[in-house]
């Protein structure tokens, strides 16, 4: 009984922090319809500012606390302004992911990657109430959370700005017609959200250590709390946070501590499948369903493909490359990795580009492919080629399950669930060490086909090249058939597609299966090429890199996916050793591209080509006369 009381008390302490972060997310979501995946990293950053004020400038705690909160509010307003050009929901999601990368990397550069310890607000002796041990700091957490919630409640109820903000969440145009300054209200909303995050960060930091990952898992839990309470109701979100904290405590004391972190993810899935509107929420309008303003990649199933000459050039270059760099295993190794990521990115594009479904957890699928392949070769004794195929099929089956779950989720919810998958799978791999060998990881067998052993980078290059080519051909065939058209039709208009006889469920699930299959193949190749895998290879960070590949390269375009993969693999070479610089570069590139150049690098190429053409034809008008100009036009059209 005593233990139960203690567990519940501890649960409420941690749950009130979940509630704070969840409230910060929901306030912004309700008034601006934007979801901020960088929220956790912003809180982490503000906490570091607080840490600097404390440790470097030796300010008293309260001053440092307030300083950090002011910074946090300003940072949130800055983020709000950065996100302003974003047009669609998916571009907001991706832009906040870019900010996630940038904040993490900048914090890493300033404060280093090693954890530091952060002091508690109150360091008094713990005391006991009815046998439950409480520390003054715990009570401070709960008290502060309650005060903040009360203040928010009063603000929304009685302050004119608060009332206007409630009106705003109902109807933006009418509220602005009533004379409320939308801009000012949005700024206030984001500032409040920033303060809540800052408070949570400073309260969370003493419970563990302060490092760049402080809020990563926390954010997922806040999402769970928000979903649990219903994304739209403030009291619901608070109840969601508290009950998540208590339930987690119960699971870890009575079932297993190992399950604690994955519990949130499992709960998230269950809630979304059974009661997506949460405890107190109303059914929110499903994000992503109405794609009227969405920028989507153009599609033409009968566009002439690459000319024979280009195909040949591509083939010659890719075959010649390893001979040129035969002695340089370093470059060959990265070329092989690039090929593997190309397969993954093309697969991911089936979802993100062609079907319009987001996946923020593709590293989890890569991991499933990699581990299945290694286990099948080393423990079951499968030959490499069979393990490769099986890895694809096993991961494809996982994709099937994900596809079924995704039928009921769209936009925001799908993003949260896949983010959850991406967070949960590496943790499961860590904990399930009889099979996966935990932290230590697994060695992968050297790939061989028949008697031919593939053990040099030079040979691996050709193995991967062959699979990349098959991937491109198959993808092209699928996209240029009724299947590809059905994907894009569903993306553009679900109602229209269904009226034309496209089975929504079948094609949506098929897109997940194809995407997962390619991820599995890529995972298997990754494992056998690198020779060693551990959970750290498949963290949520990698999932973010994969989604960045697509958007940087250009969505809904095979060359786009390939360019993106090449960019993301090759750039770190030039900044060898500096994870931070390349992360800032990726994050920055991603942010600029998502906000201003929706068609990515592949789009740059097209724009460049057009400018080139125009210059060329203008020259020909002046120099050669109209007849020849027509000739050049025909020539360019035939290309």
């Amino acid at each position, binding site marked *: 009984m005593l233990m139960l009381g203690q567990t519940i008390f501890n649960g409420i302490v941690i749950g009130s922090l979940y509630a704070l972060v969840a409230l910060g997310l929901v306030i912004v979501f309700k008034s601006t319809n934007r979801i901020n995946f960088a929220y956790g990293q912003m809180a982490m950053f503000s906490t570091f500012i607080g840490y600097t004020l404390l440790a470097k400038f030796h300010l008293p705690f309260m001053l440092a606390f307030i300083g950090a909160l002011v910074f946090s509010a300003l940072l949130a307003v800055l983020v709000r302004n950065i996100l302003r050009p974003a047009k669609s929901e998916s571009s907001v999601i991706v832009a906040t992911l870019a900010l996630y990368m940038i904040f993490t990397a900048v914090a890493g550069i300033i404060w280093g990657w090693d954890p530091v310890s952060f002091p508690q607000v109150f360091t008094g002796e713990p005391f006991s109430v009815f046998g439950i041990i409480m520390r003054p700091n715990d009570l401070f957490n709960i008290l502060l959370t309650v005060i903040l919630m009360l203040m928010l409640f009063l603000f929304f109820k009685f302050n004119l700005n608060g009332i206007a903000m409630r009106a705003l969440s109902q109807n933006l145009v009418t509220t602005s017609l009533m004379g409320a300054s939308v801009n000012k209200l949005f700024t206030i909303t984001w500032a409040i959200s920033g303060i809540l995050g800052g408070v949570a960060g400073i309260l969370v930091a003493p419970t563990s250590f302060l490092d760049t990952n402080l809020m990563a898992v926390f954010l997922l839990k806040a999402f769970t709390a928000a979903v649990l309470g219903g994304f739209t109701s403030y009291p619901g979100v608070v109840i969601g946070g508290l009950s998540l904290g208590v339930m987690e405590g119960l699971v870890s004391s009575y079932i297993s501590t190992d399950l604690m972190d994955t519990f949130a993810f499992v709960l998230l899935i269950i809630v979304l499948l059974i009661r997506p509107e949460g405890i107190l929420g109303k059914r929110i309008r499903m994000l992503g369903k109405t794609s009227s303003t969405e920028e989507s990649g153009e599609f*033409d199933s009968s566009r002439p493909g690459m000319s024979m000459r280009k195909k040949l050039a591509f083939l010659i270059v890719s075959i010649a490359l390893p001979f040129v760099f035969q002695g340089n295993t370093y470059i060959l190794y990265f070329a092989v990795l690039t090929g593997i990521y190309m397969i993954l990115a093309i697969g991911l594009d089936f979802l993100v580009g062609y079907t319009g479904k987001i996946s923020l957890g593709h590293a989890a699928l890569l991991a499933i492919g990699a581990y299945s392949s290694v286990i099948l070769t080393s423990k079951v004794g499968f030959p490499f080629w069979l393990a490769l195929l099986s890895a694809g099929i096993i991961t494809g089956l996982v994709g099937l399950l994900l596809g079924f779950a995704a039928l009921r989720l769209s936009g925001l919810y799908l993003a949260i669930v896949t983010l959850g998958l991406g967070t949960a799978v590496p943790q499961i791999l860590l904990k399930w060490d009889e099979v996966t060998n935990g932290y230590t990881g697994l060695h992968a067998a050297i790939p061989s086909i028949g008697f031919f052993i593939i053990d040099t980078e030079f040979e691996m290059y050709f193995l991967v090249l062959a699979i990349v080519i098959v991937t491109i051909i198959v993808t092209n065939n699928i996209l240029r058939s009724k299947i590809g058209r059905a994907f894009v039709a569903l993306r553009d208009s679900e109602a229209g597609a269904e009226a034309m*006889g496209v089975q929504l469920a079948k094609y949506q699930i098929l897109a997940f299966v194809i995407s997962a299959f390619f991820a599995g193949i890529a995972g298997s190749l990754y494992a056998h090429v690198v020779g060693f895998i551990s959970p750290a290879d498949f963290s949520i960070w990698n999932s973010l890199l994969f989604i960045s590949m697509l958007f940087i390269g250009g969505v809904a375009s095979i060359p786009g996916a390939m360019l993106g993969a090449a960019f993301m693999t090759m750039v770190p070479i030039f900044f060898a050793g500096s994870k931070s610089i390349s992360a800032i570069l990726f994050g920055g590139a991603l942010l600029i591209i998502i906000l201003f150049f929706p068609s990515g690098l592949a789009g740059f190429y097209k724009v460049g080509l057009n400018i080139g053409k125009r210059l060329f034809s203008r020259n020909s008008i002046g120099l050669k006369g109209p007849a020849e100009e027509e000739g050049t036009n025909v020539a360019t059209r035939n290309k």
Partner: protein
Amino acid sequence: MSLLEINNISISFVGLKAIDSLSFSVDEGSTVGLIGPNGAGKTTVFNCIARYFKPDQGQILFRGEDLLAFKPHEVIEKGIARTFQNMELFRSMTVQDNLLVGQHSRVNTGFFINAFSLRKKKINESQIKDKAAAVMDRFGLTPYANSRVISLPYGIQKKVEFARALVSEPKLILLDEPAAGMNPNETEEITELIKQLRSVDGITVLLVEHDMKLVRSICDEINVIDFGRKIAHGTPEEISRNPQVIEAYLGRQEENEYARA
């Protein structure tokens, strides 16, 4: 025998009765109009036939078969194609591709046939492209075949949606305000195209439209609904003289006087 038979269907949304014990039928080969003031429930009837909504009660028979047993994507296989009031085109695709998706239910190639581009796929693709080309030619859409729908003017988009419904070779076409927002020239073109559905293809048409001139010129019979109930049925001449219909559109005499006072 009637091709489509609506028997006593009702549907309510949060307490509001959108359709109230509505019955009417559409004879094979005829062109039937469904008219009524805004909010009368015309589009809801379409959505029930297209299986987006399930009526709370009643029956919808198509060629004697219970339509309510099928899913939305199966309706077109039965031979019913539709257009939407607010257009549900595939905006990022070309006009040709829109018409190819329109034939989705007519292509039965499996996944691997498509993935490896086997002979059967190529034959199928060229067949549906020919069909799409024929319909585009008839609708004057050939110059736009390779343009993205989103880049085309509204009037052309409307025609693309009409063409997309026709290309599936349906027995019955449901047209939801095909002339809405069109200028007189475009409306005339659309009128001609609808007339051709009967004279050239022998397709039955159920039409929702506010343009009374269009409705009168092409419909054999008209059903008028208001507040989800059928208030009149008859030939265009009968309907234009029906006092109840005039009342539904213009309001009752006393009410108007009351409002003026």
